[in-house]
C-alpha cells in the first residue's frame, strides 16, 4: 500500500505540491491527469525518493520513504518507475539494459538475470531484439524496453510518468497496450498520463491535479462523466 | 620585495625574449593560416583520393616532434642546400608549415560542417562557386573554425618555445640563460610562465566562450 499524507514540495519559490493526500491499495490502478505544472510528475519522483519532500509523509508498505533511516536503494527495488524520456542505456544491448539492475542490485547470477530479462522482454514484445542496441529501436520499442527493465526487478508497484508523451503518435498505441496488459495482470500502478481514453479504460480511480492540489478523485465513469470540480470540467472540456 | 640578483638589464633581456616569442608566433600564425586555408580548400576541392599526397605531407607535421622538424629544417637549409639563412627565418618557415598543417585540418572541418544541402541551395540560386564560398561557406565555417583556430594560435605560441634549437633566443631560452647565470630557477621560471599564462588564459577563455555561444544556435 502506498500512503501519501499531506505532502508539500517546493522548487525554490514555486510550490508544486500543496498538501497531497492519496492512498493506493495493492492491485489498484490509479491514473493522474492534469495540466502541465500541476505537480503530477513531481509526485511520482517523490514517491520513489528521487526528490526530497518538504513536509508530510509517503509510506510504502509501512516504510517511510523520506525517513533518514530508510535505505532508498532497497526501497526502489519495490517501486519501478518509467519516465517520459525512456533513458535507454545506449552502451548496453537490450538484454544488458534489463539485466543490469537484477545483477548489480539484487546480486543475481548472469544466467538467472538473463532468463528473467528474456521473459520480461518477450512479455513486452521485444523477444527478438535481445542483442540489439537501443539506437536501433524505435521510441516505442525503447519505451517498452524501459518497462521490461523496471519489471525485471519484480517490483510490487509501478510508476509511469507520461510514458507516451515523447512518442510519435503512431507508436503510442503499442506502449499503452503494454500498460493495459500489466494492469490486467494485477500490477499496482500509478500512471501520470495525457491519454484520457487509457485513463478511462484502465484505472480504478482517476485523480485530477490542478496547481499542486488534487482537485478531484473518483472512479473513471464519475470523473469523466460527471466531474464535480470546475477546474476538472474546464480541463476535460479542453482535452476533448 | 625579496632577495634577487635580477637587474633591470636582465628584465630587458627577458622582454626581448618575449618580443621574439610574439614575433615568431605572429609571423608563423599569419603565414600558416593563409597556407592552411589554401591547403584546406584544396583538400576539400580535390576530394580524399586526389588530395592524398597533400594530406600525407601535412600529416607529417602533426606526427613528428616539432623539435625534429626544426632540426631537419635547419640541416636541410644549412647542410644540404648550403644557404646562409638565419635561424629566425628557419624557425618561421618550419613553424608556418607546422601551423598550416593544423590549420588545414580546422578549415576542412569548418567547410565539412556546412551542410551539403545548404551549399546546393546556394548554387541552385545561381551563385557561382566563389560566391557560394564567400557568402555561404565562409560565414558558416568560420563559426565552427574560429574557436579551434584561437586554440591553434595559442598552441603555436607555446610551441614556439622550441625554436631555441635553431639558435633563436625566445622567452624560455632567455629565461634559461638567466637561470644558468643567476641560479634562481623557480623565480625566473615563474616570471616566464606568468607571461605565457597571461596571454593564453584570457584568449583561451574567449575561444571557449565563442564555442559555447555559437554551438547553442
Amino acid at each position, binding site marked *: 500500500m502506498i500512503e501519501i499524507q499531506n505532502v508539500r514540495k517546493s522548487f525554490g519559490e514555486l510550490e508544486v505540491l500543496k498538501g497531497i493526500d492519496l492512498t493506493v491499495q495493492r492491485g489498484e490502478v490509479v491514473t493522474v491527469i492534469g495540466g502541465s505544472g500541476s505537480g503530477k510528475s513531481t509526485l511520482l519522483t517523490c514517491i520513489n525518493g528521487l526528490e526530497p519532500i518538504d513536509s508530510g509523509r509517503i509510506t510504502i508498505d509501512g516504510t517511510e520513504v523520506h525517513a533518514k533511516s530508510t535505505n532508498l536503494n532497497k526501497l526502489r527495488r519495490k517501486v519501478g518507475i518509467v519516465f517520459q524520456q525512456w533513458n535507454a542505456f545506449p*552502451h548496453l544491448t537490450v538484454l544488458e539494459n534489463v539485466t*543490469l539492475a537484477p545483477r548489480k542490485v539484487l546480486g543475481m547470477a548472469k544466467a538467472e538475470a538473463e532468463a528473467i530479462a528474456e521473459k520480461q522482454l518477450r512479455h513486452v514484445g521485444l523477444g527478438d531484439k535481445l542483442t540489439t542496441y537501443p539506437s536501433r529501436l524505435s521510441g516505442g520499442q525503447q519505451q517498452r524496453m524501459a518497462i521490461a527493465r523496471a519489471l525485471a526487478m519484480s517490483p510490487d508497484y509501478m510508476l509511469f510518468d507520461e510514458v507516451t508523451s515523447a512518442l510519435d503518435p503512431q507508436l503510442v498505441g503499442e506502449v499503452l497496450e503494454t500498460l493495459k496488459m500489466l494492469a490486467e495482470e494485477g500490477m499496482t500502478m500509478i500512471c501520470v498520463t495525457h491519454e484520457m481514453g487509457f485513463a478511462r479504460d484502465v484505472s480504478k480511480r482517476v485523480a485530477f491535479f490542478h496547481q499542486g492540489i488534487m482537485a478531484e478523485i473518483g472512479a473513471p465513469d464519475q470523473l469523466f462523466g460527471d466531474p464535480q470540480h470546475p477546474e476538472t470540467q474546464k480541463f476535460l472540456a479542453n482535452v476533448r | 620585495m625579496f632577495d634577487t640578483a635580477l637587474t633591470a638589464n636582465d628584465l630587458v633581456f627577458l622582454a626581448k625574449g618575449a618580443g621574439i616569442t610574439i614575433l615568431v608566433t605572429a609571423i608563423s600564425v599569419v603565414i600558416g593560416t593563409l597556407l592552411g586555408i589554401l591547403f584546406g580548400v584544396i583538400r576539400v576541392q580535390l576530394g580524399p583520393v586526389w588530395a592524398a599526397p597533400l594530406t600525407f605531407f601535412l600529416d607529417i607535421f602533426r606526427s613528428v616532434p616539432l623539435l625534429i622538424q626544426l632540426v631537419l629544417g635547419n640541416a636541410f637549409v644549412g647542410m644540404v642546400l648550403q644557404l646562409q639563412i638565419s635561424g629566425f627565418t628557419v624557425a618561421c618557415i618550419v613553424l608556418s608549415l607546422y601551423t598550416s598543417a593544423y590549420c588545414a585540418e580546422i578549415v576542412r572541418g569548418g567547410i565539412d560542417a556546412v551542410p551539403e544541402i545548404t551549399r546546393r541551395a546556394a548554387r541552385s540560386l545561381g551563385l557561382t562557386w566563389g560566391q557560394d564560398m564567400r557568402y555561404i561557406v565562409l560565414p558558416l565555417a568560420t563559426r565552427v573554425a574560429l574557436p579551434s583556430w584561437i586554440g591553434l594560435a595559442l598552441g603555436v605560441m607555446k610551441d614556439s618555445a622550441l625554436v631555441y634549437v635553431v639558435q633563436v633566443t625566445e622567452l*624560455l631560452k632567455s629565461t634559461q640563460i638567466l637561470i644558468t647565470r643567476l641560479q634562481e630557477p623557480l623565480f625566473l621560471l615563474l616570471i616566464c610562465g606568468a607571461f605565457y599564462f597571461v596571454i593564453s588564459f584570457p584568449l583561451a577563455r574567449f575561444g571557449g566562450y565563442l564555442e559555447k555561444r555559437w554551438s547553442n544556435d
Partner: protein
Amino acid sequence: MFNYTFQWNQAFNRLPQMLDGALVTMEIAILSMALGIALAILLTVFRLSGSRPLMAFATTWVEIARNTPALFQIYMAHFGVASFGIHFSPFVSILIGITFNNAGYLTENFRGALKAIPDTQGRAGRSLGLTQLQSFRYIIAPQMLRISFLPMTNQMVWAILMTSLGVTVGMNSDLYGVTQDLNALTFRTFELFALAAVIFYLITKTITLGGRLIAARLFRY
C-alpha cells in the same frame, strides 16, 4: 642536384640504437598516460566534489597545463623544484612534466564527456535501485570512455611527441636523446634526424590507427 652527399648508411647503421631509444620513448609515453589518466580521474572527482579548495586546486592544475608551454612544465619539474632542494633524474623530470600536461588536458576532456551525458541517465540508474557509485560505474563511465577515447589517443600522440623535450633536462636514452648523441658523434644531422622522424611517424600512426581499431571493436553501439 645538391652539393651534399647523403650518407644514409651512417644513419641505418645506428638503427638498433635508435630503436632502443624508441622503446624508452614509448615507455615514457605509456607511463605518463597511465599516470595522467589516473590523476585526471582524481582531478575530475575534485572538480565535482563541491569543496572549494579541491575545485580550485583542480582548476589551477588544468589551466596551467593548458596555458603554458609543455617545455615550461618540464623545466618546472626539473629546474623549478631544484629551488626546493629537490633533484629529479631526467627520466623522472620528463615523466612528471608530461604527466602533468596529460592530466590537465584529460581532465578538461572528461569534463566535456560528463557534460555530454544527460543527467537522466544517472537518474534512470538510481531509479532502478543502483547506488550512485554503481550508476557511475556501469552507466556513466562506459559512456564517458567512448566520448573520451579518441581525445585520449590524441593525447597519447602528444605524449610521444613531448618525450623529445626530455633532451632539454639531460635525457639521452629516449629516441630524440639517442639521435642527438649520435649526431654529436657523426655529424650526419639530416640523415639521423630524418630517420628519427620516420620512426616517430610510424609510432604515432600506429597509435592513431590502433586507437581507431580498438574503438571500432569496443564501441559497437
